């Protein structure tokens, strides 16, 4: 019967999968979503990571061995990361795991890495809970609260002393950013004149915006996601609000400017990386990325690149790929010159690094400045 033959073959092939790896290669695991809901993030970060691994190998590899990137697609499905990471660790014997962009996927993989004592570096999971799972879990991006502080610093440097806040109460991310913005802003001579709220999926923000308008703020901080922010910007313009809007990396999305049109001109938001940054290392990365993939790299690609580079540097310092020593070496990363800024990992395994401020003008993003932590 066909099915039983198939089963036998599949079992035989599965067993054959445990072929020993060549001794001159260091296996490094990576998981990301190439398909499904968050595919655009996953594809970018995977391209960035693969570019970094190629570059390391072209430069002779580490410890005299080449890195072998073993990649798995988690299809943006819950339940997949745990299986994949178990596969990477037990079958491919990876020395470390790189991934994922979405915090919920990283949170699923993290306990498995922790229990198996295999270091995991997340390129772009900004939720603080991710690295709280254990001492083998790291990240190369800044965490949500940091962006709040950055935007507060930026507003103060622009001389905006009165700021109103519009928070998405349904998102941990938004609430976190607002909380740290208020803390820093009020402590440094600013005044938060009004705090208003909305929920993910809302379409009408005129009530909140009207009550903000009467307080005559210098700027409005909206730490939400692009879908709502673009609508808020349009409605603010209709109501005659002309002050700049401020936000975080949740603004980055294809439809932001498509929906908002010119309503966001003069606004600013923080993010991880800008391809317009004129520094030679950034431009070098952008050129290499363009040559290989024919597209301009985004935040996720740059973070994926940095995560692989930090791992390679740590393997070099540790002189071994043994889990515990590698963990210590990654944790000791100091002033690593990355594409997304100079990265230092703190005792909570989070990256201390500058954020990039982008401005919006004539319907396009423009690099403004970097703000150090």
């Amino acid at each position, binding site marked *: 019967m066909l099915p039983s033959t198939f089963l036998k073959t599949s079992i035989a092939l599965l067993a054959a999968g445990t072929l020993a790896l060549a001794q001159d290669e260091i296996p490094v695991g990576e998981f990301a979503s190439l398909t499904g809901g968050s595919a655009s993030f996953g594809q970018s970060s995977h391209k960035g990571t693969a570019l970094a691994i190629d570059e390391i190998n072209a430069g002779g590899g580490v410890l005299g061995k080449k890195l072998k990137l073993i990649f798995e697609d988690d299809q943006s499905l819950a339940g997949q990361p745990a*299986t994949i990471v178990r596969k990477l660790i037990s079958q491919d014997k990876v020395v470390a795991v790189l991934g994922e962009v979405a915090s919920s996927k990283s949170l699923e993989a993290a306990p498995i890495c922790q229990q198996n004592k295999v270091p995991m570096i997340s390129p772009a999971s900004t939720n603080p809970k991710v690295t709280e799972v254990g001492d083998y879990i790291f990240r190369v991006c800044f965490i949500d609260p940091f962006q709040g502080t950055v935007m507060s610093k930026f507003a103060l440097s622009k001389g905006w002393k009165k700021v109103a806040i519009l928070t998405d109460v349904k998102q941990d991310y938004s609430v976190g950013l607002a909380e740290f913005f208020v803390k820093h802003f009020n402590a440094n001579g600013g005044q938060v004149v009004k705090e208003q709220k909305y929920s993910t999926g809302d379409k009408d923000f005129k009530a909140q915006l009207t009550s903000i308008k009467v307080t005559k703020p210098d700027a409005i901080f909206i730490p939400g996601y692009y879908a709502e922010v673009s609508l808020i910007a349009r409605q603010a313009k209709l109501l005659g609000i002309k002050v700049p809007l401020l936000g975080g990396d949740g603004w980055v999305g294809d439809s932001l400017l498509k929906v908002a049109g010119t309503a966001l001109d003069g606004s600013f938001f923080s993010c991880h990386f800008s391809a317009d940054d004129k520094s030679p290392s950034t431009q070098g990365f952008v050129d290499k990325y363009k040559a290989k993939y024919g597209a301009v790299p985004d935040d996720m690609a740059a973070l994926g690149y940095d995560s692989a580079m930090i791992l390679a540097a740590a393997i070099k310092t540790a002189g071994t790929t043994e889990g515990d020593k590698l963990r210590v070496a990654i944790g000791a990363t100091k002033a690593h010159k990355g594409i997304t800024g100079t990265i230092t990992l703190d005792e909570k395994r989070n990256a201390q690094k500058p954020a990039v401020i982008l401005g919006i003008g004539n319907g396009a993003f423009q690099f403004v400045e970097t703000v150090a932590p």
Partner: protein
Amino acid sequence: MDKWPKSILIAVLLGCLIGSPFVFQINPYYYDILLGIGISIILAASLNLVNGYTGQFSLGHAGFMGIGAYASSWVTLSYGYCLGANTTSTTTVFLLALLGGGLMAGIAGLMVGVPSLRLKGDYLAIVTLAFNEIIKGVIQNAEPLGAQRGLGGMVQHTNFFWTFGFAALTVYVVVHLVNSTYGRGFLAVRDDEIAAEAMGINTTKYKVLAFVLGAFFAGIAGGLYAHFKQFIHPEGFNFLRSVDIVVMVILGGMGNTAGVCFAAVLLTILPEFLRSVSHYTWLPLWLQQIAENRMILYSLLLIVLMLTRPQGLFGGLGMPRRRKDVEK
């Protein structure tokens, strides 16, 4: 032939007992797949009671699974039993949590079963689908359950023994129920509701019972899943997950427990099998590249199977007992 499920059940339970000390030695990846198979069997066999035997098209099975997963995790997390200790008391808490998850899901099954009894076919499918989304929506907004962030921190307590023990129990209950004098009512409701009613069968009761029992076992499966992955997220219990389970039931053959269990095994192994094929460097490159697009291949296989065997893999073959009934 009456006794076959019982002997199979005993065989599987014995197998689990004998096997459980050894499975710790196998590769954790295969172990992961193995437990995934067990959980799929529970889900598919329990949905088969609703969709296959009772003929009610439910598209919300993952919702019940989610209720079980969150309820049982809530119990074990709030009990806060110590890490890794495999003592009798932690096992008791775990089993109570599973039972609690199952009961909560069963209650939810009752809630969706009673008001939607007047609906049939597509309409019922839409109601159950909506219910699935409601459950997901409630969890996404429930801060104590982690909301959109997901819930983690559970200890891995699901093992080979419990997973396959519950899988065997589910199969046993479903098959025995349907094959009992009482359970013939399920089949009657499926085959001709009006005729069944005319014969004095309380169709309402049977439909609700099918929903509640199906949901109960889905809840158990959810509890096992939560304590095996150690992290759950509302998106893991969405509509797509429900469709996965429905596919298992249809592919295996509606109302054929053996076929449905086989489909659950097949559909759990297949994606992982294709995953490993794409990494075999000794295979020709073009074969690897085909396997890389494994989800397309997987879907193609489903289409081919459905075209060649529209009644399901085992559909029409039937259990020996049922064929005899027809011959009579």
